[in-house]
């Protein structure tokens, strides 16, 4: 990694942290668009800045830090990511340009559970019958589907070829799935013999199955970035509290039991950061080891986030257990992140497949 690129990324991080700290927990989508964060990866031809996933990773981490309510995961990591991975057929560039200016929200109805790690990623099938193309299937826990104007549906053709079908969300059944984590918007997307003959069917560029796999890996790593960010916010909050809260006539942070727990948080997060950054670089460069690196980062960072947020609640004492405190918000987001796009165990299973 060149020092210049690292510097650019750290500058982006500083700007993002500053802007987001003023924007509140549900930052205005147009604010993110104006900052240029929606088109970080996109080509200049469609209005993007031609950077890479490592910059997207920075934004994801900073959004995690404030536990943001934002369609960034759905529309940018997945939506823009999917559009960029498709063959440049008519309509694609226009939609991508609209996504990165924030005019349209696009969600991707990819499988989101453990099956997404090692098994099939296309929850939909597309078949010709009586001269019409019909789409059917259902995907659960699709990020930001309810807010989306378009949904991209990964589907398998009768000959098991993966394709992507863009559908106006109004034509689909989209049922919001409320979850304990109040900061995420997930929904079930169902297509019930939907006639898609009129619209285009897009093909992932290159090896279609590998392209979908990369898309799922992007999502998994983005969630890991989010967990890294939210963990750091909780470590910072806990350290602040431990320095200020007095018991037995001294700050509780001077007690080894508290201090050592904080030290363990920092150690785990130091390791998690390395894994996340290595995986982001591998994904950005498209190296063959990227999938394994993503699995390491996802499993480790999301497990670490559980330890850190749990410990944050413990060390904040009674006040940390209240609804007023933000700790439960972070704990629940960490729990959701742990499961979304593959549990730690599922990702370790994928790693273990390489052992033969």
């Amino acid at each position, binding site marked *: 990694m060149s020092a210049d690129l690292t510097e650019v990324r750290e500058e982006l991080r500083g700007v993002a942290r500053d802007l987001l700290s003023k924007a509140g927990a549900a930052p205005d989508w147009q604010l993110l668009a104006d900052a240029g964060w929606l088109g970080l990866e996109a080509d200049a031809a469609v209005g993007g800045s031609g950077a890479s996933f490592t910059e997207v990773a920075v934004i994801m981490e900073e959004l995690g830090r404030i536990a943001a309510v934002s369609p960034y995961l759905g529309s940018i990591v997945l939506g823009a990511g999917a559009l960029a991975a498709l063959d440049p057929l008519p309509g694609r560039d226009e939609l991508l340009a609209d996504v990165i200016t924030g005019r349209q929200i696009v969600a991707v109805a990819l499988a989101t559970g453990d099956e997404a790690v090692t098994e099939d990623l296309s929850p939909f099938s597309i078949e010709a019958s009586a001269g019409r193309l019909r789409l059917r299937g259902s995907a659960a826990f699709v990020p930001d589907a309810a807010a989306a104007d378009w949904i991209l549906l990964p589907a398998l053709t009768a000959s098991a070829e993966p394709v992507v079908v863009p559908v106006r969300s109004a034509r689909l059944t989209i049922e919001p799935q409320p979850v304990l984590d109040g900061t995420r918007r997930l929904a079930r997307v169902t297509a019930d013999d939907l006639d898609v003959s009129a619209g285009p069917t897009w093909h992932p560029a290159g090896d279609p199955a590998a392209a979908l796999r990369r898309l799922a890996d992007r999502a998994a790593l983005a969630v890991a970035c989010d967990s890294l960010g939210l963990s750091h916010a909780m470590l910072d909050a806990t350290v602040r509290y431990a320095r200020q809260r007095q018991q037995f006539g001294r700050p509780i942070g001077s007690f080894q039991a508290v201090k050592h727990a904080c030290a363990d948080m920092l150690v785990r997060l130091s390791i998690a950061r390395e894994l996340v950054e290595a995986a982001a670089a591998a994904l950005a460069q498209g190296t063959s080891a990227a999938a394994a690196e993503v699995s390491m980062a996802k499993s480790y960072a999301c497990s670490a986030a559980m330890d850190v947020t749990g410990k944050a609640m413990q060390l904040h004492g009674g006040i940390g257990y209240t609804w007023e405190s933000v700790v439960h918000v972070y704990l629940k987001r960490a729990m959701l992140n742990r499961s979304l796009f593959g549990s730690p165990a599922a990702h370790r299973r994928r790693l273990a497949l390489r*052992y033969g």
Partner: protein
Amino acid sequence: MGTADLGQFRAGVQRWCSAHVPAHWRAAQTGASQEEFISFQQAWFQQLRAGGYAVPHWPAEWGGGLSAAEQVILYQELAAHDAPRLVLGFVSIHHAAATLLAAGTDAQRRQHLPAILDGEIWCQGFSEPEAGSDLASLRTTARREGDTFVVNGQKIWSTWALVADWCLLLARTDPAAPKRHGISYFLMDMRSPGIELRPIRQATGEWHFCEMFLDNVEIPAAHLVGDENAGWQVAQSTLSAERGMTMLELAERLGHAGLSRLQRLCRQAGHDEAHPAVDPLVADQLASFETEIAGLRALCRRVVERHEDGRAGPADASIVKLFYSELLQRMTGFGADLAGLQALTELEKPASSSWESGAWALDFVGSWEWTIPGGTSEIQRSIIGERGLGLPREPAVTS
């Protein structure tokens, strides 16, 4: 140095390793006598020296001069080729050299750095029976008498003291000063009259440590390092100076020989014909260790980079030491569990190997040699909390 040059450097190291790493050294070093161990270590050190790889971290004028990026590659390749480790000369080439380079006089450097290249062995005289984690409370005294210091006291846990030529010694030169302010740093000739050594057998059955009794040992004032009463600062600055690269070496070892041994162990058929690798719990653990090792290796590279750029974090050294030592303990513990009774029949591990030699039960017992010395895990956590996170120190006990 560009990527292409580094690629060439790596290829050169690979060629050298293929030609020079002794075949079957593990078998030869298992059950080796102390003499065999020492002569093997010295011969391997001289081979590395001839290749230009013995002291890569030293300045070029003293025989080193590899860039940090090259050192990283060197240690990666030595690990990948499962080369023997420089166990005996560790204190000499790292702590002694770092101390001399940072705080030694020209005369001290000229005397010792070439001698270390020729095989001079150093030990450390820091800890005392009553000064372990609380090192600054050490009681060994050095009383100035003209151009000489007269040393009295007792040191403990001095690795390889029995075969060492020289010792890095901390002793109190101003008993009236506050704890950390009255300590001086000396180079002590181990042939000096008045030194008595008693080996300590450790939990693994090996004899790496010594107790050292110092009875009116005379040290010329010319062997003082840094200013009188400024020894604590000298020790602090050199103790962690080398940690980045030495930890990187160990992390690379863990990632190569360590992980591949563990993978082999997992694949071996169990007593009941079960194939442990297909046991999902075993596979899950293995994936977990692989992940943690990958994170540790990346963190070590990062710490080395930051150190090079003068951006070292105040808790960097403690974070890698703590994580490495506890990972080593969990990993060897897992290996011992998996290898079962068979692991308990291995009564000796190969000398000159890394901390995960494949004799899992002994490796596990030996892992406390990482969680206790060099600042226990508890001390490391306090350092990380206080220096890394800015948490308040514990109030001093006043009595």
